[in-house]
């Protein structure tokens, strides 16, 4: 059976061109970039070239790019790097984020709370957009950093980053954005966005797992999470991961080149999928914002059925998706993102996320819809919840 991978929000395969470009750096151009000989120098020069390419794409300076070991690490570095600056001085302070962030942000915030920092978790509206007046009011004199994601990984909602940056900068505060999901499809011009720090994730942009970038304006000092041999200007030690860095540059280059066209293509496909689901399956709810939405994201709740069941039956048909149901996670609570947008537990349990990708075709979407049109009614037939829903609403 052919696999229809509609889970690009979880991770992406490495692009052929990206793998090809970076492959020589495993066993041929393998020198330690810090070594003082030609074998090291050659690696160093390639890393410098990669950094230059990326800086151009991000519209920033080379020294503003820190290579890390994942999106999660970049986020931790941005937040803890600021918090620990204060801690070593014996001081504390205040952070702001919002409720639909990825666990990489939320768990990090929870931890710095344990250290004595205060954190405000802003609410979002029913589309998942942060409330700007709430943000404005939340900023305090001792606010050290605001971290608000660019686009949400579950419902695809795109935040008004420029406006957010403006509000934060009017109060003279710093702004980090988690752009893990946005990188492939939206502008990552840091100057235009007005961000002070931004996280990029290799594993979401057809590049390597275990690779990430933290863009950080050069006037910002961060306490490193990883101390050692002073690589990345001392902000992130450890021998440079040359293949992963070369891969990141190539992946960003390709994504930048194809962004506009791919965004248009996927937006059409996404809208087509949403429309067909809405038209051909009764009692569904599209989660998130239909307009301010990642072009590859379809998140839908099916009344009266539970997400894991749908997921596994789709899986049996070769279709890979994900769900906000508690049943496929470690916790017993359904998606904190869906709940934050005001969804009932019931509908959160019944949600499925499809995230399309560069190889996704209309045919695959049609196949998926056709399978959904069998799976959902069947699960509703055996569901103890369906009859009431069907008749009530």
């Amino acid at each position, binding site marked *: 059976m052919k696999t229809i991978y509609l889970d690009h929000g979880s991770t992406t395969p490495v692009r052929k061109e990206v793998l090809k470009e970076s492959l020589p750096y495993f066993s041929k151009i393998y020198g330690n970039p810090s070594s003082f000989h030609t074998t090291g120098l050659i690696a160093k020069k390639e890393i410098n070239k990669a950094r230059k390419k990326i800086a151009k794409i991000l519209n920033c300076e080379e020294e503003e790019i820190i290579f890390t070991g994942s999106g999660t690490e970049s986020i931790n570095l941005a937040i803890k790097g600021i918090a620990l600056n204060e801690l070593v001085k014996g001081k504390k302070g205040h952070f702001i984020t919002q409720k639909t962030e990825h666990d990489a942000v939320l768990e990090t915030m929870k931890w710095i709370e344990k250290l004595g920092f205060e954190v405000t978790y802003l609410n979002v509206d029913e589309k998942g957009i942060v409330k700007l007046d709430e943000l404005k009011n939340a900023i305090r004199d001792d606010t050290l950093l605001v971290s608000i994601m660019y686009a949400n990984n579950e419902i695809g909602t795109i935040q008004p980053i420029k406006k957010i940056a403006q509000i934060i900068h009017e109060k003279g505060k710093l702004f980090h954005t988690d752009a893990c999901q946005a990188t492939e499809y939206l502008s990552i011009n840091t100057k235009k966005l007005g961000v002070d720090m931004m996280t990029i994730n290799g594993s979401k942009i057809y590049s390597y797992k275990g690779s990430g970038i933290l863009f950080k304006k050069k006037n910002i000092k961060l306490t490193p999470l990883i101390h050692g041999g002073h690589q990345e200007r001392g902000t992130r030690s450890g021998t440079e991961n040359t293949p992963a860095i070369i891969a990141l540059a190539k992946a960003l280059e390709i994504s930048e080149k194809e962004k506009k066209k791919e965004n248009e293509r996927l937006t059409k496909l996404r809208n087509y999928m949403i429309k067909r689901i809405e038209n051909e399956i009764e009692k569904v709810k599209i989660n998130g914002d239909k307009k301010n939405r990642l072009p590859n994201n379809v998140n839908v709740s099916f009344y009266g059925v*539970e997400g894991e*069941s749908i997921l596994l039956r789709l899986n049996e048909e070769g279709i890979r998706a994900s769900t906000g*149901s508690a*049943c496929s996670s470690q916790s017993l609570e359904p998606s904190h993102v869906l709940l934050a947008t005001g969804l009932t*537990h019931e509908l959160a349990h019944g949600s499925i996320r499809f995230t399309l990708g560069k190889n996704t075709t209309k045919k695959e979407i049609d196949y998926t819809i056709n399978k959904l049109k069998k799976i959902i009614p069947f699960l509703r*037939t*055996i569901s*103890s919840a369906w009859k009431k829903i069907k008749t009530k609403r």
Partner: protein
Amino acid sequence: MKLEGNDWFYSKEVKKHFMKPQKFLKNENEIKNFNGYGKVGNMKCGDMMEFWIKVKNDKIIDVRWKTFGCASAIASTSMLAKMLTEKKGMKIEKALTLTGTDIMKRLGGLPKIKIHCSILGDQALREAIKNYLENQKNG
């Protein structure tokens, strides 16, 4: 979710019952053939189960069910239905002794995290038996 080392997320038996559930209520008209009914769980927790039993001479001779829930919830209800009816029915006394663990064993095990939340079947059954006994008293 902890994986059990097989090629699917759950055991073969869970997969079988999840993909081809047995004895669920296909048609509302069937309800009238049953003389005991139980319902447990709720939508908020992601698991809700209804259970109908047909008792004759203190023996459960047929059952139906409906479940809103994940694969293991569906499979465990289906398995319970099978266990109750496979040998031409089960004595109420014996049915009352069935536990989640019994169902789980027959399913070839479940991931740890699933055990407490998805096996509502035995509880729904107990509710159904209770309901049957009350019906007997009242009617």
